[in-house]
Structure formats: structure tokens, C-alpha cells
């Protein structure tokens, strides 16, 4: 429903904005010449067109439009796929979609194989003449098998009747299939089917796995036929399966053929038994000849015109089912771009862009679902708040040895099994956080973890990098001393450090924060250094003349003067850290946006993958916009000094 509305809205937005744009071009007097940047100003309507277009393409190629407008189509197409699949084996026997009869092509193939073997044997140096004669005689005999099958006069009545029987069944199916109430479902059957349909759910529905609370993969296309049309195809497919099973069980084996093939098999068996171990090659050749004989035995080879009626029946049914598809074929052609469901046969999966490109509606639903703190991902919400007692932090901050150095002993349990508290014990409780004070809300979850890692890495990088960078910009020793260190690790791509750092410092926060610290440190040092060494000498001179001390010059002149470079550095560092973090979370860890994406990848949860991509993009954008705002606010003089 929502998808339909959105699709219409987008459609009209695109058309409306294009019309508006065109009218604007006509009515507005553009006095800006070509090349004047003013020509590119404004144009919100084109932004709408651009983004709508993107969304429209997404809706279309993910088959969400098909789902929105024809939610039952996928299920019906799946039933059509079943029929196609059942019909396939029968159809292949005839030149319906192929060029020739299956019998013809099989005969051609085996003749070729026999001829090849015969030539090899004749030209071989391994065999003496006697052996050659024997092997070639086997081949000749096998060759004689085929005419026994294709001779109309030898076709047995029983076989003939069976073929007619099968043909009759197909014709009956065709006749029934065209009746509106086929497959004559009883009320009970109907109810059972509808119940199964209900249980299975709709196309692309998301279900919550009650046990683990995690999000199950989206069901692609429901298998159970939900509509009357679908049921028709489903039933026909089942009948066809039986018919084709019957046909393929049928053998065109007349007594002459049976005798002949028995004779060949026996002779070759005897021949192979007599062979010594050194004559292995001859044995192999003999075996290959038997193989061909067996293939001929099990191939459905019939006299040229024996199956004509059956062929007609199949064509008739095929046309009937194509007719019955009706509008479904149009939907399949136009609303399922770059793939189809029919191709998957009875497995009913999406074959094409609908598979890896999740539907916006499904993605949105899943996002809403994942945003619920009770669902989240892998038992951890994306972003939520939990209540944490202040005591936890007090216990974390205060070192435990405070209790140890107090005079006295820790309490010991008494005879009657109780423990009497004393001062030392009470202090221990405080420093280990084993008490209750009051709770404060603390954010947690995948997004928060990722954010916190970037934030901590960045803050440490700034705290250490900026003073060091300023120092290096002003002092020859500092520059010389620290330069090699930084230039040694900075050119290495941060991710190249990741495996080492993560294996030394652990997969948890320490390793990742340190990695991000390394990333931000070099950027902050370089930008702070550039800022410091870029201070105009006259400003320093002026500050000296005004009586500022060295410290004051650093604090009030050099630092603010470097601020534009430092803030730009922070902006670059945030981008770098964000990119590095997500990749680092791919490598290891149990929380974070990158972790979510990595796990989703393992289970082909395309919606989740796209959701994480989206979240990361949005957060990256948010960071950048925030920083840009801060930069504009704090250093309005930038570029105007």
C-alpha cells in the first residue's frame, strides 16, 4: 500500500518538477552567460527529480513496484515456474523448443561415440589383430541395437497402448485445465490450503525468530499457491509430474532388442573376465562399449512417428497454460526487470536484481524492526539507553588498593556462618563499586559503540596530536625527533596495522580505539604543525612587543592561528577514522555497525547490509555537517586574515 502511494508520489513529483523546471527556463530571463557559476544556483526541483529518480530506479529494480501493485504475482509466477519445470522433460523429447527429436540427437551422439571408439581401436598399437577383431565386433553389435528401437514394425502393442494412454492423460489434463473450476478443490482442501498460505506469509514478509530475538532472513516468494490461478498451475504441475514419470519409466524394448542387448552384455562380460591384468586397456574399451549399449537401453528412443500424437498433446497443453497465464506474462516482462521468478522453477526464489537488491519497503520494515531495542541485531539494539548505577563508575575510577592499604584485616566469617562488616570491608565495597547509589541513563548499542570508538580515538588523537604538532612546528628538536616516528607509520594504510594491533590489544574496544588513535594522531600532528609553522612572524613579533610571555604567545596567538588547520584536520580525521573503524569491525569484534554488516553478509541478509550501509552514510554525513557547522562558527575569519 505504502509502496503504491510512494510510487505515485514520486512519479508525479518527477513529472511536476520537470514541467516546473521547463517553465522556469522559458519564463526566467537568464542573463548569466555560459560559464557563469550563477547558472547553477537554485534548482531545488531538480534535486527532487534526481532523488526521486534514484528512488524510482530502486523501487523498480528491486521489484518493489511489482510487489506493491501485484503482491500475488510472485506467488503465481512461482506456480507457473512449477508447470514449466514439470513440462520441461517432456518438451525436450520433441522439436518444440529444440531443433530435433531427443531420439534423433541421442542416436547421432551414440553413433559418433561408437565410431570414435572403433577408430581408436583400429589404430591402436596396444592390441593385436585378434583383439582388434573382437572389440570391433562388439562395436558392430552395439551399432545394430539402434535399428531395433527405431523400427516401427518392431514396436510392441503394449508400448503403443501405453503411449496412447499417456497422450490421453495429457489431453484430459488440457481439457480440465481450461475449465474454470479446475482442480475441483473441496471445501476442506481449500481451507487447508488457505491455512498453509497464512502460515507461510506473504512475499518478502519479515518474521521475528521468537527464540533468539534476531531477524530471520526475508522469505523470498511463498511456495503454497494462494490464488485460484496459482492453484490451477500448481495442480497441473503435479499431474504433469506424474505423467512424465510414467513416460520416462516406459521402455521401448521389444524381444529382439532385449535378446540382442543381453547377448552383447554377456559376451563382453565373458571377454573381460578372460582378460589378464596386463590387458587392462582392452578391458576399459570393452567397458566403454557396454556403457554406450546401456545408454541406448535407457534412452527414450522411439520410431520416428510413434510419438506424434503425444507431441501434439503437449503442444496443446503448453498453449493452454500460456493462455491461462494471461496478464501475468506482462507483469513478468515489465515489472520484474533483470530477472524472473519462473527461472527458479519449483524453488520459488527471486532470480535477478530482486534478489540482491532489497525492496525499499522490506528494508524500511526491517529497519523499523531492528530499531526496536528488544530486537536489535544479535541481541544488541542499534541504539538505546540503559540505566547504569553510578557506583559502577566510581568502582571503575577508584583503584582497589585504597582498601588494601587501610590498617586492619578484611572481615572473616564467624562460626555461625555470618560475616561481620568492618571499615576495611566497607571501603572495599566502595572501591569495587559493590553498592547502590542512583542510576543514570547511558546509551548503548551497535551505533553507539561505533560512535564511541571513533570519538575516543579522535579525542586521544587530538589531545596528544595537537600539542605535539604545535611543538613540532616551533621546535627543531621536537620536529627532528618525532618526524621519523610519524613518517614511519603514517604512510602505511591504517588497515594494514589492524591485524597486528587487534591481535596484540584484543578484539574489543582497546584495539580499535588504538587503531583509530593512530589514524587521527598523524593527521592531527600534521595539521597542527602546519598551523603552527604557518603563523605570520609579524603576529608573533607584535605579541612579543605587547608584552606576552612565551606561554601566552602559544596560547593566545599560535594556537588560535592554527585553529583553522586543526579543525580541518579534525574533519579529515573523522572521515578517515570512520572508514577505518568499519573495516576494523569487519575483521573482529562483537558489536558495531561494521560487525552487523559483516554478520549480515554471512547470512545473505541483503536488507540488513543495505541498512548498515545507509546508517554509515548518514552518520558520516552527520559528522561532517556538524563539524562544518562548528568550523564555520568557531573560525569565521578563515581565509580572511
Amino acid at each position, binding site marked *: 500500500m505504502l509502496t503504491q502511494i510512494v510510487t505515485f508520489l514520486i512519479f508525479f513529483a518527477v513529472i511536476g518538477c520537470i514541467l516546473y523546471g521547463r517553465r522556469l527556463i522559458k519564463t526566467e530571463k537568464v542573463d548569466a552567460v555560459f560559464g557563469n557559476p550563477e547558472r547553477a544556483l537554485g534548482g531545488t526541483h531538480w534535486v527532487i527529480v534526481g532523488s526521486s529518480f534514484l528512488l524510482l530506479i530502486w523501487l523498480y529494480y528491486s521489484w518493489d513496484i511489482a510487489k506493491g501493485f501485484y503482491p500475488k504475482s510472485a506467488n503465481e509466477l512461482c506456480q507457473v515456474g512449477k508447470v514449466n519445470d514439470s513440462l520441461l522433460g517432456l518438451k525436450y523429447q520433441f522439436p518444440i523448443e529444440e531443433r530435433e527429436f531427443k531420439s534423433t540427437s541421442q542416436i547421432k551422439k551414440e553413433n559418433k561415440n561408437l565410431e570414435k571408439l572403433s577408430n581408436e581401436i583400429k589404430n591402436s598399437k596396444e592390441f593385436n589383430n585378434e583383439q582388434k577383431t573382437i572389440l570391433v565386433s562388439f562395436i558392430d553389435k552395439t551399432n545394430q541395437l539402434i535399428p531395433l528401437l527405431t523400427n516401427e514394425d518392431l514396436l510392441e502393442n503394449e508400448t503403443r497402448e501405453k503411449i496412447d494412454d499417456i497422450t490421453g492423460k495429457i489431453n484430459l489434463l488440457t481439457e480440465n485445465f481450461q475449465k474454470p473450476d479446475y482442480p475441483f478443490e473441496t471445501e476442506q482442501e481449500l481451507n487447508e490450503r488457505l491455512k498453509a498460505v497464512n502460515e507461510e506469509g506473504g512475499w518478502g514478509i519479515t518474521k521475528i525468530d521468537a527464540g533468539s530475538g534476531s531477524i530471520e532472513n526475508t522469505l523470498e516468494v511463498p511456495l503454497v499457491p494462494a490464488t485460484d490461478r496459482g492453484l490451477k498451475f500448481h495442480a497441473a504441475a503435479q499431474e504433469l509430474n506424474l505423467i512424465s514419470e510414467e513416460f520416462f519409466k516406459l521402455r521401448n524394448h521389444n524381444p529382439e532388442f532385449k535378446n540382442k542387448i543381453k547377448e552383447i552384455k554377456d559376451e563382453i562380460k565373458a571377454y573381460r573376465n578372460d582378460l589378464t591384468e596386463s590387458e587392462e586397456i582392452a578391458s576399459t574399451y570393452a567397458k566403454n562399449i557396454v556403457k554406450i549399449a546401456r545408454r541406448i537401453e535407457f534412452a527414450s528412443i522411439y520410431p520416428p512417428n510413434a510419438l506424434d500424437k503425444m507431441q501434439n498433446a503437449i503442444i496443446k497443453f503448453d498453449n493452454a497454460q500460456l493462455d491461462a497465464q494471461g496478464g501475468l506474462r506482462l507483469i513478468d516482462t515489465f515489472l520484474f526487470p533483470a530477472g524472473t521468478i519462473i527461472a527458479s522453477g519449483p524453488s520459488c526464489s527471486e532470480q535477478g536484481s530482486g534478489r540482491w537488491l532489497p525492496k525499499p519497503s522490506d528494508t524500511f520494515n526491517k529497519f523499523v524492526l531492528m530499531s526496536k531495542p528488544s530486537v536489535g541485531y544479535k541481541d544488541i539494539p542499534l541504539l538505546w539507553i540503559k540505566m547504569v548505577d553510578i557506583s559502577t563508575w566510581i568502582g571503575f575510577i577508584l583503584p582497589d588498593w585504597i582498601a588494601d592499604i587501610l590498617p586492619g584485616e578484611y572481615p572473616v566469617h564467624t562460626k555461625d556462618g555470618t560475616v561481620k562488616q568492618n571499615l576495611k570491608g566497607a571501603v572495599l565495597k566502595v572501591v569495587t563499586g559493590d553498592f547502590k547509589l542512583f542510576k543514570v541513563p547511558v546509551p548503548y548499542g551497535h551505533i553507539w559503540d561505533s560512535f564511541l570508538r571513533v570519538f575516543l580515538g579522535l579525542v586521544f588523537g587530538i589531545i596528544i596530536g595537537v600539542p605535539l604538532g604545535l611543538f613540532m612546528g616551533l621546535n627543531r628538536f621536537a620536529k627532528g625527533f618525532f618526524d621519523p616516528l610519524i613518517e614511519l607509520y603514517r604512510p602505511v594504510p591504517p588497515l594494514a596495522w589492524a591485524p597486528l594491533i587487534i591481535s596484540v590489544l584484543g578484539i574489543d574496544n582497546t584495539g580499535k580505539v588504538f587503531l583509530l588513535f593512530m589514524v587521527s594522531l598523524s593527521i592531527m600532528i600534521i595539521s597542527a604543525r602546519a598551523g603552527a609553522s604557518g603563523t605570520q612572524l609579524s603576529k608573533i*613579533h607584535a*605579541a612579543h*612587543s605587547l608584552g606576552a610571555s612565551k606561554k601566552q604567545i602559544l596560547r593566545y596567538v599560535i594556537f588560535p592561528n592554527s*585553529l583553522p588547520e586543526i579543525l580541518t584536520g579534525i574533519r579529515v580525521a573523522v572521515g578517515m577514522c570512520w572508514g577505518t573503524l568499519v573495516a576494523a569491525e569487519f575483521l573482529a569484534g562483537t558489536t558495531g555497525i561494521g560487525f552487523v554488516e559483516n554478520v549480515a553478509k554471512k547470512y545473505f541478509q541483503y536488507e540488513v547490509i543495505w541498512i548498515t550501509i545507509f546508517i554509515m552514510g548518514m552518520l558520516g554525513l552527520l559528522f561532517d555537517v556538524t563539524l562544518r557547522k562548528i568550523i564555520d562558527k568557531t573560525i569565521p575569519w578563515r581565509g580572511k*586574515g
Partner: protein
Amino acid sequence: MSDLVSQNLNMIFKTPKGETVHALKDLNFTLKRGELLTVLGPSGCGKTTLLNITAGFIRPTSGTITLNDKEIDGPGVERGMVFQQGALFEWLTVAENVNFGLRMKKKDPIETQKKVDEWLEIVGLKGFGNTPTYQLSGGMQQRVALARCLINDPDLILMDEPLGALDALTREKMQSLVLKIWKETGKTIILITHSVEEALLLGERLYVMAPRPGRIHKEYNLPFASMGLKQDLREIKKDKDFSAKREEILEMIWNMEEEIMGKEN
């Protein structure tokens, strides 16, 4: 009492290439308290070097320079400096720039604010206290620089081509301002300029310097600065004596430039 005394001042620079530049050679002069000295000379004759030594930013190679009998061996508040481009702190407002020196000395904020208002009024920037510096025009920036320097009440004011980057009209106004401040405060001022007219108008005394090595070529005692205190500057420029001096000095500098060109070729 003689105030600024320079004895055998020499400054020899070594360039990274290993060449030596004799920027100042055997400079001897004495500047009395309350005098306004203008220094004129072709580019590269050592004017800025002289000022930097006086301010204490660089040490002379040899010789001494003393202010009130105390040798100059570093920057100090008693010697205020005004630069060609203002060298204002663009991250601060006008008032914050002006009170920078007092803030660094941690003076009483209320007292400081009063002084700032006073000085802003004197330099003609009343009401601009909260304006960010980067929004000011070139002339206004120089006024801020003047106020920033004067609020510290220095004994000696050093100005390195302070009006060089200004347009003609603004420049004239600023020249009057410099004279006004000189009169009202009675400060000793050294003003460097490359404009002959400015040097003549503002200088009670005038040194014309010659390059390679930098030295004082000729010294003048001029009446025009005193005249400028009472009279319109434009009137003085029409003075016959003024024109004659101007032509004389222009000729002198021309010859120096010719000589330099000759040397180079």
C-alpha cells in the same frame, strides 16, 4: 637627556647560500625623547632591519643600542611596534586586539575597558569595539594597530611603513592622526616610509638611508611636522620649501637606485 642611542651598529646577515649581506654599517645616531624621526630610503637599505633591532626582535652583529641608558636585548613593552599589514589577531574583536597587551599583563578588566574606550575614540573607532577584526577595512585595521600599541604607553613607537598599503585619501587622514597622537602623547616615534612626501610631512627629523651597506646618507631637521600640527597637510605640500626638499631627496634616491642598477649590471 638623550634617549635612543645607537653606537657603531652593524648588522651582517648570512643567507642560507653562504653570502653575507651588510644590512647596516656603523650606524651612529641619537634620538631625543619626544622626537619624531622618519626614515626614508630605497628598498633593501636596511630600514626594517634597523627597526627590528630597535624592537629587539634581532640582535645586531656588533655595536650597541640603548634606550634610556638600558641596552636593548629583546622585545619589550616600552617599545611598541606597528606593522605594515597591521598584524592584527583576526580571531579577536577590535577591543580584544586593543586590550591584548593589558590582558597579557593581567591588568584590572574595568580599568582596561575604560582605556580601550578612550583609545578607540582617539583613533576614531568609537563603537567598533565588538566588530570582528577581519571585517575592517585596511585603514581601520591600522587604527586598531595604533591603538593596540599605544594603550601600553610605550616610550618609543616604531612604525614600519604603517601607511604603505593604504589608498591616498585614507593615508592622508592617517598621517594627520599620527601627528595628532604625536602631539597629544609626546611620544618618541620612528616611522619608516618609502614615500618622500610622507617622510617630509611627518618627520621632525629625517634620515635618508643608502644601501649596500646600509647607512645614513643624509640627515635633515624639518619644520613641516610642527607646521602640520596647526595647519592643513595639503597646504604644507604647496609650500615652496617643501617642494624644493622633495625634489632634492627624490633626486638623491634616484641616484642611489641608478647606482644599484649599475652595480648589478
